[in-house]
C-alpha cells in the first residue's frame, strides 16, 4: 500500500500516541495539515509559532507524553526557535515538525526558506532533514525515542514539501538502530556504595534536588531518602514541588533569589547529594566559592553534567530514581536529634520571607500566599519570567511534583501564557493559573485569543507594576543613584478592557483587603479571567545575591 509522506507522518504520530498537536499552518507544511484534518489528531491553532512550542512544552510536562508543535518553513520555523531553546535547557520532550521548501529549491534562498536544521543544531537534542519519504516513519520513531529517553529534550524534523507529497511505502518500524545513543539508567554499584558511605558518615549532609527528580518521577524516593538519613532538602526552581513545602526537612529553593535557609545550608554542608541538577550559575552564584566545605555526590543521567560547573567527588551516571532506589537498599536510618535541631534552627532563617508578606500596600507576596491558600493542591501554576516568577517560587506552597511550570534555564518571558494552554489541554479538569508580569504577558499576549477559542478556563494573575521590575531592580542595585533606563512600560493598555476585548472576564485588584474576595470569585469562574493586580514599582524581590558573591552573602534590606 502506498500513501503520501504526509499521511505516513500522521500515522506515525498516531502510532506514538499523539492526540493533540500545536500547529500554525503555511505554504510548505500544508500537505501535513491536510493529513491532520483527515485524522483523529486535534490541532490547536496558536497565534504565533513560538507559543505553539511553549504550549507543547506545557503539554509535555503535564501529560508526561511528548509534546508536538508544527510550523511552516522560514519565519514559521524561526519563530519556534525560542520555544525549542527553552525546552532544550529545561530538558522537556518535544518534537517539532517544520515544513521546508521543496527539495530542488533547498539551498537557493527560496521564498520562506531557512536552514532550520542548521539554526536549531545547538538547541535540539537531535534534528533531521528528511530527503526521502521512505525515511519518514523511521525518523518519527527515532525522534520520539530520542526526545523522551535519557535526558529528555526537543527533536526537530524538517520536511520538504515534495517529500511530504511523495508516494511512499507505508512501512512502520518498531526497531531502533541508533548505535551512538545508549542512555545509561543504572548507576555504577561501587559508586553507589561510596555515595552511601559518605552520606552515613556525614555530619551535615544536604540534598540538592532539581528538575531531574520530576522528570524521573523520583519524588517518593527522594522523600524516603531524606527522612531515612535525616538530611535537609533544597530544591531548585525546576525542582519545586519535588519535595513537600511544609516538610520539616525542606529548606526551600537555593540561589540568587533563594531562601536564606537553603543558601546557608549549602554553604555549611559537609556532604552534598546533588540529584538531577546541573549546578546552574543562578544556584551556585560565584562558582569558585560554592559549598566550600562539601564533598559532592552528583547523580545525573547526563554524563556531560558531571563536573561541568562544579567538580564532583563521587559522580554517578544514571536515572535518578533507579539510583536512589539502589541507595535505599544500603542506607540505614540516621536518628540524630541534634541534627534535627540544627535543621530547625537553620529553617528559622526563612522567617525573613514571612516577615516580608505583611504590608498595608498591596504586594505580590500577599497575593501568591493567598493563592496557595485557596487553590486546590493539584492546581497547575505557570509563570512568566521576572519578579513575579521569583515571588511564586518563594511564596507558593508547592506540594505536588510537576504542578509548577516555569522557564528555568532560558528564562523566557512569554512562556507562561502559552504553557498554560498546553497544561490545560493536558489536564482539562484541573485548575490552571498563569502568574504573569505586565512585561512578560505582552510577549505572547495574542494567546488570549487561543484560550478563548479553545474555551479554556485559564486564570491570569497579572502582577502589574507598569515596568520591567526585575531589570529595574538590577539597574537600581548595579548603578545606584543613576537614572533608570528602558524599563518603564509606558503605553501599557488597560489590561481589564483588553481582556474584555478578548472575551475574557476581568478584575482589578488594588487594595489588600480585596484580595480574598477577588481571588475567590475569579478562581470560581468557568471562564478565562484576568486579574490585574496593581503593584508598586519599587516592590523588589529579596534576598538577592549579587553577581560573583558567595551564596551566604545575601542582600536583605
Amino acid at each position: 500500500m502506498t500513501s503520501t509522506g504526509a499521511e505516513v507522518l500522521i500515522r506515525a504520530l498516531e502510532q506514538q500516541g499523539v492526540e493533540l498537536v500545536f500547529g500554525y499552518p503555511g505554504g510548505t507544511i500544508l500537505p501535513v495539515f491536510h493529513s491532520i484534518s483527515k485524522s483523529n489528531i486535534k490541532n490547536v491553532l496558536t497565534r504565533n509559532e513560538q507559543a505553539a512550542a511553549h504550549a507543547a512544552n506545557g503539554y509535555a510536562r503535564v501529560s508526561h507524553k511528548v509534546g508536538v508543535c508544527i510550523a511552516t518553513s522560514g519565519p514559521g520555523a524561526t519563530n519556534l526557535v525560542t520555544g525549542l531553546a527553552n525546552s532544550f535547557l529545561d530538558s522537556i520532550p518535544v518534537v517539532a515538525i517544520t515544513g521546508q521548501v521543496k527539495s530542488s529549491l533547498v539551498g537557493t534562498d527560496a521564498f520562506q526558506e531557512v536552514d532550520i536544521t542548521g539554526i536549531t543544531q545547538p538547541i535540539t537534542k537531535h534534528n533531521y532533514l528528511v530527503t526521502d519519504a521512505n525515511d519518514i516513519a523511521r525518523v518519527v520513531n527515532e525522534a520520539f525515542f530520542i526526545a523522551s529517553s535519557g535526558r529528555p529534550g526537543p527533536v526537530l524534523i524538517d520536511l520538504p514539501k515534495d517529500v511530504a507529497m511523495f508516494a511512499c511505502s507505508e512501512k512502520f518500524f518498531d526497531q531502533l538502530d541508533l548505535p551512538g545513543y545508549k542512555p545509561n539508567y543504572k548507576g555504577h554499584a561501587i559508586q553507589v556504595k561510596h555515595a552511601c558511605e559518605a552520606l552515613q558518615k556525614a555530619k551535615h549532609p544536604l540534598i540538592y534536588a532539581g528538575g531531574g527528580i520530576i522528570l524521573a518521577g523520583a519524588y517518593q524516593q527522594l522523600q524516603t531518602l531524606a527522612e531515612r538519613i535525616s538530611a535537609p532538602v533544597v530544591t531548585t526552581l525546576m525542582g519545586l514541588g519535588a519535595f513537600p513545602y511544609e516538610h520539616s526537612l525542606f529548606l526551600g529553593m537555593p540561589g540568587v533569589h533563594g531562601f536564606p535557609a537553603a543558601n546557608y545550608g549549602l554553604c555549611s554542608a559537609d556532604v552534598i547529594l546533588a540529584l538531577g541538577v546541573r549546578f546552574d550559575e543562578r544556584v551556585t552564584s560565584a562558582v569558585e566559592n560554592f559549598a566550600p566545605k562539601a564533598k559532592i555526590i552528583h547523580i545525573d543521567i547526563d554524563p556531560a553534567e558531571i563536573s561541568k560547573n562544579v567538580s564532583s567527588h563521587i559522580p554517578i551516571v544514571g536515572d535518578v530514581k533507579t539510583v536512589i532506589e539502589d541507595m535505599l537498599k544500603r542506607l540505614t536510618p540516621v536518628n540524630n536529634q541534634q541534627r534535627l535541631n540544627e535543621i530547625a534552627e537553620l529553617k528559622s532563617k526563612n522567617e525573613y520571607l514571612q516577615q516580608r508578606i505583611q504590608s498595608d500596600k498591596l504586594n505580590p507576596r500577599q497575593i501568591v500566599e493567598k493563592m496557595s491558600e485557596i487553590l486546590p493542591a493539584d492546581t497547575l501554576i505557570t509563570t512568566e519570567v521576572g519578579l513575579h516568577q521569583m515571588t511564586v517560587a518563594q511564596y507558593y506552597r508547592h506540594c505536588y511534583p510537576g504542578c509548577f511550570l516555569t522557564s528555568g534555564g532560558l528564562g523566557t518571558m512569554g512562556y507562561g501564557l502559552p504553557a498554560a494552554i498546553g497544561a490545560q489541554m493536558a489536564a482539562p479538569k484541573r485548575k490552571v493559573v498563569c502568574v504573569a508580569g505586565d512585561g512578560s504577558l505582552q510577549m505572547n499576549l495574542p494567546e488570549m485569543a487561543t484560550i478563548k477559542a479553545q474555551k479554556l478556563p485559564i486564570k491570569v494573575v497579572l502582577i502589574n507594576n507598569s515596568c520591567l521590575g526585575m531589570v529595574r531592580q538590577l539597574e537600581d542595585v548595579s548603578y545606584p543613584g543613576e537614572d533608570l533606563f528602558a524599563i518603564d512600560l509606558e503605553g501599557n493598555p488597560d489590561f481589564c478592557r483588553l481582556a474584555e476585548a478578548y472575551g475574557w472576564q476581568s478584575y482589578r485588584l488594588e487594595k489588600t483587603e480585596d484580595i480574598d474576595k477577588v481571588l475567590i470569585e475569579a478562581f470560581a469562574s468557568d471562564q478565562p479571567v484576568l486579574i490585574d493586580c496593581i503593584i508598586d514599582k519599587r516592590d523588589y524581590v529579596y534576598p538577592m545575591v549579587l553577581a560573583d558573591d558567595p551564596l551566604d552573602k545575601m542582600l536583605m534590606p
Partner: protein
Amino acid sequence: MRHTLSILVENRTGVLSRVAGLFSRRGYNIESLSVSTTDKKEISRMTIVVEGDQKTIEQVTKQLHKLIEVIKIYNITGEEFVERGLAMFRVIPTPENRAELMQVVDIFRGHILDFSPTSMIVEITGGEKKILAFEEALKPFGIAEVVRTGEIAMVRGGKSKNAKGENND
C-alpha cells in the same frame, strides 16, 4: 596538552557540521581534523587533534558523546600510536640552489610532485614534528604555498579501535 581523538560516527550528511559546531560554540579549539569513510560505508572516522587540559578534554569527550550520530570516541593520547599527516609545498628555488633543495627533500624522504622552470611542488608525510621541521628546512628556498591535511592516527600493536569497541586480531 595536545590530545588525539579517534571518533567513529555515522556516515550521514550534517555530522561534520554538528561536530565542528560543538567545538566552536563551547569554545574548544580544533588543531586539526580529518574525516573519511572506513571499511564500513555507513561509518566514518574523524581524527581530531585538540589542545586543552584534562578537564577540557573530558568535557569535549562527554559533549561529543551526546551527539546521537557519534558512535565511539577513543582518546588515544596516552597510548603508543603512529600519526601521519601529509603536506605539499610550492617552493621557488633559484637555478643555483635547486640541487640543494632536492637534497633536502631526499633527507626528509619527501617527493617531488611537480617541476617547472620557476617552481617545484614537494610532498612529505609524517607526524606533526617532521612536517614542521621540513617546512623550516624549505623556508630559505622560498615557500609560495602550503597545503596540509589533518593528522590521522592508529594505535600500535594488534588492537583495533572500531565502532563496536576494541578488537584483538
